[in-house]
């Protein structure tokens, strides 16, 4: 994994300009497989199970994309990336799309020449500590040793937070979540900080998860979403509208189970366009007309994806919160399918 940052950096500058820039959709179709940049392993978001099958909230969006393009959610290959290697992997063309808890920021959008085409999880950075440390607020962490993943926004937020509160800390820089967990569980750091969703996911896999608490402070905005290379707008549209389709499906009550039946019977014009019954929305962006129907049939609507991977009742047990639909007081709001 470390090496791929180097190779990727070289590759990023030596591949022929045209190949990686335009026509990602054509490349994917020609290859017969989507390549999706994923986590190295974050339970609930993207992780391979014992049989090597990838599952998770982010993984399901990759599957939805594969279903939209090929009508088959299994035609996708997952490439694990760390916080450090992920953007290089995307820029060099090693992956077609990166769906891996990545925060949309100004510099990534501009300087790194990437495009964040949607926000599939509104998050913020939090801290996790051992219960018996006796800390109830992040502001009490003066002098603490903090585990932090390198190459992330959280690394910079952490520095800002401690500076603004005039307290000090000792950073322990780690490459990925599993190393952070190892150090944290061994007591090599007092606190572990990353996206709150990541903390919850991490805690769910710890042997004695109830020994740890997530502190109340959320110190940043972390809008996480799928990322594509800047400059291939059509491919960006494909990813954005596949995600939007899952949102609208939830809004309209279209589910994995009833999608075929709704397609046959619905009188709602937007639903008919969404499922390819009327209009040619899919064809307009180079997909089959029933692309979004296939995506919904493969993974379910946004609410189902959320509930089955990270929602209440799962090991991760996250509330919808900001990620509820706009009609239910959340921020998830898709542009109309028209």
């Amino acid at each position, binding site marked *: 994994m470390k090496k791929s940052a180097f190779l990727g950096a070289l590759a990023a500058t030596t591949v022929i300009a045209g190949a990686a820039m335009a026509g990602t959709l054509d490349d994917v179709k020609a290859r017969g497989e989507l390549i999706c940049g994923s986590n190295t392993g974050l339970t609930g978001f993207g992780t391979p199970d014992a049989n090597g099958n990838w599952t998770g909230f982010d993984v399901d969006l990759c599957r939805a994309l594969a279903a939209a393009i090929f009508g088959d959610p299994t035609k996708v290959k997952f490439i694990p990336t760390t916080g450090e290697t992920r*953007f*290089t992997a995307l820029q060099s063309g090693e992956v077609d799309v990166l769906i891996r808890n990545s925060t949309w920021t100004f510099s990534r959008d501009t300087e790194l020449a990437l495009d964040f085409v949607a926000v599939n999880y509104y998050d913020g950075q939090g801290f996790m500590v051992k219960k018996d440390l006796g800390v109830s607020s992040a502001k009490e962490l003066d002098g603490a040793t903090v585990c932090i993943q390198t190459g992330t926004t959280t690394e910079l937020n952490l520095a*800002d937070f401690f500076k603004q509160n005039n307290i000090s800390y*000792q950073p322990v820089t780690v490459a990925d979540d599993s190393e952070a967990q190892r150090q944290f569980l061994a007591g090599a750091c007092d606190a572990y900080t990353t996206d709150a969703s990541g903390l919850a996911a991490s805690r769910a896999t710890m042997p004695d998860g109830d020994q740890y608490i997530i502190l109340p402070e959320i110190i940043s905005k972390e809008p996480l979403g799928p990322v594509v290379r800047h400059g291939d707008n059509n491919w960006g549209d494909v990813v954005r509208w596949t995600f939007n389709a899952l949102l609208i499906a939830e809004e309209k009550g279209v589910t994995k189970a009833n999608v075929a039946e709704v397609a046959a019977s619905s009188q709602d014009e937007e639903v008919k366009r969404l499922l390819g019954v009327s209009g040619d929305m899919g064809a307009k962006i180079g997909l089959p007309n029933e692309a979004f129907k296939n995506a919904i049939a493969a993974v379910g609507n946004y609410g189902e994806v959320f509930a089955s991977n990270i929602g209440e009742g799962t090991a991760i047990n996250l509330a919808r919160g900001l990620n509820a639909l706009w009609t239910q007081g959340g921020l998830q709001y898709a542009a109309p399918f028209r």
Partner: protein
Amino acid sequence: MALASDVPKDSFRLSMLIYDTRYRSITIQVFVLLLVGLFLAWLLQNTAANLAARGKEFNFGFLWQRAGYDIGQQLIPYTNDSTHFRALLVGLLNTLAVAVLGCILATVLGVLVGVLRLSNNWLVSRLMTIYVEALRNVPLLLWILLTYVILSEATPQPRDFRITDEMAAAGEAPAASMILFDTVAVTNRGTNVPAPMFTRGLGMLDLGPLSINLTTLAFLIVLGGSIWAYRSLKASADATQEESGVRPTTWWQSLLIMVLPVSLLSAALGLHWEIPELKGFNFAGGILVAHSFTALLVALALYTSAFIAEIVRAGIQAISRGQSEAAFALGLRPGRTMNLVILPQALRVIIPPLISQYLNLTKNTSLGIAVSYLDLRGTLGGITLNQTGRELECMLLMMAIYLTISLIISAVMNFYNASVQLKAR
């Protein structure tokens, strides 16, 4: 009789470039040079075109922007408000610290082991064989990880040092305690050692991006002066010995020269030691030597020492037995024979391969990434590269820096090598 020089000179024809052996090799070299040049030009052009296509320009300006991240181990002052360049310097110094200390440790250990391996004592020589073979036949990365895991798993957490009120009342001792007269604390995070403090320190000299700690500078100057004085004392003792055959007693003078000036300076600047103390989550005060540093240093030194031991052994064995027999016949003791006769000659054989061991060790410091040691690779080639997205610039800069360090080491060692060569008298 026709002499060779009488052969009539042919006038030059183009076909001779290929068929005449005098010209052919030049033709081939020019051709290959052209190809290499073309290849480089293609690479450059391709890089430029691709950068342009991504809307990225090649620019080192980012080095002067705010870095925004924190670094655990810093040998020069650094905060997250410092520039990326400053972060680069912090990383570079961390690299150099491990490299320099590692080379010294590896040399000392390596020479010792190499000499002992030739010992006539069966047990000692076998033990040294095991040392060498075990260390050099396991990948370095594993040694680094092993050392790190041992250091961080076998040591207590900082809070094990705490004495609560109830414990004090019950007369219980904490689970862990400090060592060396309560001055050093080894936790699972690092080793906290006392820090030298100066009541009358000399402050900092600010030179733009560089600032120099004047107190450190003063110590370096005084130490340099002491060493110089010590060497001239030794030289004059040598001269007296050459003349009269009697070596004057100099040990107390040398001791005075080495110890007195530094002590005086320390006293003048008000040196005192800050002892680490458990405060809150961690030990505060003193200096924290993180386990990532210790593990990297120890593993690098041990691993490289095994190779150096072999080099030293080969060097010693390259000196003919006659040399030591002659030295014994003159009545030199084995220790002196080694120091005065064998080692000086063996050095000629030892130094060239030793240079490449030093180079290896220096480059191997970049394996520190395995234990999250923030060296040059970790700062410039890691966090800076990632946060700015300047892959090409960072990689090229990093390669240039490693190359420069290596060339400097080679140059210095070659210079030293030249000075120990046999001189024709």
